[in-house]
């Protein structure tokens, strides 16, 4: 695809009805697809579980990935947890778990734990980012630096269509193009930034078009089609690894839940739109497809659901059992050595504590 040409038409492999698009190959074979399905189901089931906990006051503010599982998992499966790095925004929780971040660790973060929520050494994931867009210059610098260090690594960075309006998006992508940094920018266009619709976010017909303004490729993909997402992500990762620079992938999907557990979409969302999105559910279409091949049925679904539920409970129990932080944690991880004045403040706070 020439840099100056428009973005290619949205790539898809599996129709919403769970049939294959004629004449389109995929790198995902059935076995691999079942593994992807399992991860997508885990993402969905985890969302359900922790939302219930949050409603009971046992879990922090949470942004579910419901509806976006194909984007989240299809992209994550395209990178190598051993070599490659992942730079999340915050809605890609299960992608970071796929990349090696233990589920109990990320869960502990939502429970306000400190040390137990630390990303373990060796897990090549950056902390989730609350400051929208701020992770992108980090991803560019990381990818650039890994190349300077001679590492054979690629960085996969996530951003939302809302975040793509921030200046950081522009500066990070432009710099990545100039440095030919091995980074894949994965834009999840889930149609919403809290209550702000995609139409308000930009007049562009496609966010993928922006790549041409930075001198690299932009690709649009059906973000509810895990096979299509995986295929375009693998191609982008290979390009980056080969030294051919960054790619911008726009995964067109839909946020089927609320923005986060404090949000109430009924104030701004048209129910028909949600209904339409439900018909494009990324998980059901894979289940239908596999069922058509005789590889999926209610029994298998029940069994897998059961297994996943157990994994989730084990992780949540571990996270809940992990120690809660105390006042001394305030002063951890601020500097390698606390300045005298801050040490003194620490002393005052701890002295004032009831023991």
């Amino acid at each position: 695809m020439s840099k100056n040409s428009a973005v290619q038409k949205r790539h898809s492999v599996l129709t919403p009805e769970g049939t294959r698009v004629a004449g389109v190959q995929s790198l995902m074979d059935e076995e691999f697809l079942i593994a992807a399905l399992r991860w997508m189901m885990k993402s969905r089931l985890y969302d359900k579980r922790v939302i219930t906990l949050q409603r009971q006051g046992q879990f922090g503010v949470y942004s579910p990935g419901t509806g976006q599982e194909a984007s989240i998992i299809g992209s994550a499966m395209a990178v190598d947890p051993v070599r490659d790095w992942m730079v999340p925004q915050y809605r890609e929780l299960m992608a970071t778990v796929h990349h090696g971040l233990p589920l109990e660790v990320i869960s502990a973060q939502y429970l306000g734990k400190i040390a137990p929520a630390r990303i373990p050494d060796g897990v090549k994931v950056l902390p989730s980012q609350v400051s929208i867009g701020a992770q992108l210059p980090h991803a560019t610098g990381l990818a650039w630096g890994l190349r300077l260090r001679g590492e054979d690594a690629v960085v996969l960075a996530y951003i939302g269509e809302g975040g793509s309006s921030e200046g950081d998006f522009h500066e990070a992508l432009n710099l990545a193009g100039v440095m030919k940094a091995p980074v894949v920018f994965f834009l999840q266009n889930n149609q919403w930034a809290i209550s702000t619709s995609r139409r308000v976010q930009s007049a562009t017909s496609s966010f993928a078009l922006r790549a041409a303004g930075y001198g690299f490729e932009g690709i649009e993909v059906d973000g509810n089609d895990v096979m299509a997402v995986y295929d375009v992500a693998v191609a982008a990762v290979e390009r980056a690894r080969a030294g051919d620079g960054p790619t911008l992938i726009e995964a067109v999907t839909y946020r089927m839940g609320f923005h986060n557990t404090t949000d109430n979409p009924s104030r701004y969302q048209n129910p028909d739109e949600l209904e339409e999105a439900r018909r494009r559910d990324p998980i059901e279409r894979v289940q239908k497809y596999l069922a058509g091949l005789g590889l999926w049925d209610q029994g298998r679904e029940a069994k897998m659901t059961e297994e996943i539920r157990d994994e989730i409970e084990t992780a949540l129990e571990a996270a809940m059992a992990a120690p809660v932080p105390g006042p001394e944690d305030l002063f951890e991880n601020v500097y390698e050595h606390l300045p005298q004045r801050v040490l003194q403040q620490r002393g005052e706070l701890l002295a004032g504590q009831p023991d």
Partner: protein
Amino acid sequence: MPQRNIVEAINNALAEEMERDPRVMVLGLDVGKLGGVFRTTSGLVERFGGARVVDTPLAEASIIGASLGLALAGMVPVAEIQFLGFSAQGFHQLGPQLAKYRQRSRGRYHCQVTIRAPFGGGIRSPEFHSDAVEAHFVQTPGIKIVMPSNPYDAKGLLLEAIRDPDPVLFCEPDRLYRVGRSEVPDGAYTVPFGKAALVREGVHITLVAWSAAVELCLRAGDRLAEEGVSASVVDLRTLVPLDVETLCTEVARTRRFVVVHEAPLSAGFGAEVVATLMEEIFYDLDAPVARVAAFDVPYPAASLEDYYLPSLERVLTAARKTLQG
């Protein structure tokens, strides 16, 4: 008289002023149908339409910079930055441009722009949502800094801000948004800038604060009363302009004071309060000053914020120490 909490007072002020002045418009993230993440703009888009109540793309620098341009075109923008901490994304448009534009244009242009932003801790917000960065903007002269602590002031100061020909940063204490209702009249009234309020009158010590910390100091005042200590509480209301006169008069009266704020101690605005008092009334003070502030570390995870923020205990301890001094 109608009772309103701070959210309702702000919403009422916006609605009345948009009614009165067709140039007034509201813009920012999710200020339309959603009515803002705290509902301060609730009902405005239904009432005044999408041209005057505008959901913008997710880009703070352009919200602030475009507000400047809108003002040059003759509109009166009231922009919302969803959380004050995210003013950082638009810092270069706020301090160096908006605050400075009257001077940079040698008086040809001025910017009648209000930037509203919730902030402050104590409600278990995510990262960056609680950062109390008001002192930054005291160092970028040209913009006024308004810090209401109660519903009545919130409405009166907001109307004053919208009508001020110069830019105003209006910081809203989200912890107090809905804590309680008090009398907020219908119809326009303004609370002037640069007039601190003596919200509690005492004789032994003066507690100086602004925004949510005023509520904390009032609680401290009640507790001290039980110990036989009569404390004044001064609510600065605006940091720029600063009411040096009331500050000095009230502190000179009690000869002892404590200043309380949610920002980190070092180079917080509390330091300015102390320095000003030392310059103006050094000889009227009987005891070393005390500042009660957040510690010199970044705002922590919500699970730690109660240790981080000034607590009732820490204010009382500081007050007692000052009274012994």
